[in-house]
């Protein structure tokens, strides 16, 4: 999604659901992830299972495609739930929605929910991400 089409905090209502974003979990992406996090578990190296945190990273990327948080925004907390493993080469679809918005003095808090589905439309993971955003002057 072009930067100009991304939504900012004021445009987002609680309950807003973003269009689904799909990714193919190709081998090169998974290998790069494993190298970045220095993960050597044979489940991922030999059995071609995608690390759950690679799924989570892709889900977060889906969110970044829809929302444009202002500079100075901070990722303050994260909930993750893994329900099913996926193999390299599968396609996942991420759906994000705004769960909560709150203002505390000079800061705003936004909580976004993410559901991740495999190519059979089965839910395989869920996430809840909290951001703290600065209030513009």
């Amino acid at each position: 999604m072009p930067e100009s089409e991304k939504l900012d905090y004021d445009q987002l209502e609680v309950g807003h659901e973003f269009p689904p974003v799909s990714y193919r979990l190709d081998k090169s992406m998974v290998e790069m992830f494993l190298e970045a996090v220095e993960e050597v578990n044979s489940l991922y190296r030999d059995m071609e299972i995608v690390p759950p945190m690679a799924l989570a990273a892709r889900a977060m990327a889906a969110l970044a495609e829809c929302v444009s948080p202002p500079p100075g925004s901070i990722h303050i907390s994260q909930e993750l739930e893994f329900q099913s493993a996926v193999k390299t080469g599968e396609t996942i679809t991420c759906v994000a929605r705004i769960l909560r918005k709150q203002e505390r003095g000079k800061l705003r808090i936004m909580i976004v929910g993410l559901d991740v589905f495999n190519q059979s439309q089965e839910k395989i993971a869920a996430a809840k991400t909290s951001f703290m955003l600065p209030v513009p002057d």
Partner: protein
Amino acid sequence: MTPVKLNDLREGSDLPGIKKDIKQERVNQYAEASGDFNPIHLDEEFARNTPAGGRIAHGMLILAYASEMMTAAFDRNWLTGGKLNVRFKIPARPGDTITVSGKVTKLEKNEENTLIYCAILCTNQDGETVITGDATVTIKN
């Protein structure tokens, strides 16, 4: 690393921990793999002019180390029945050494499953808490 044996676990048991050195090269690779190119992780000049005061690692990169510890301990059970709930307390920076530790806080058995509750802690080389929270694994009996 061999997964832990369920029968060996007790409340208070420590999970085998992990230690990682944060390198900018790995942060750059994580940006490529995740698609998160926020300049606060990649551009020193940009990052120096933010409240972070310099480049920081992605919080999700550090969280991946916690997930690595849980996979090493619980194998596939982590992938099919793992839950994490954490708070990012301070950023990790290139040059930091992160220690990830976990401790079993509660074991709960019902007819179908055993639930293992763990406290998760990621600290830097100065002993400061980078990430704190808890994890749960559900294992079918």
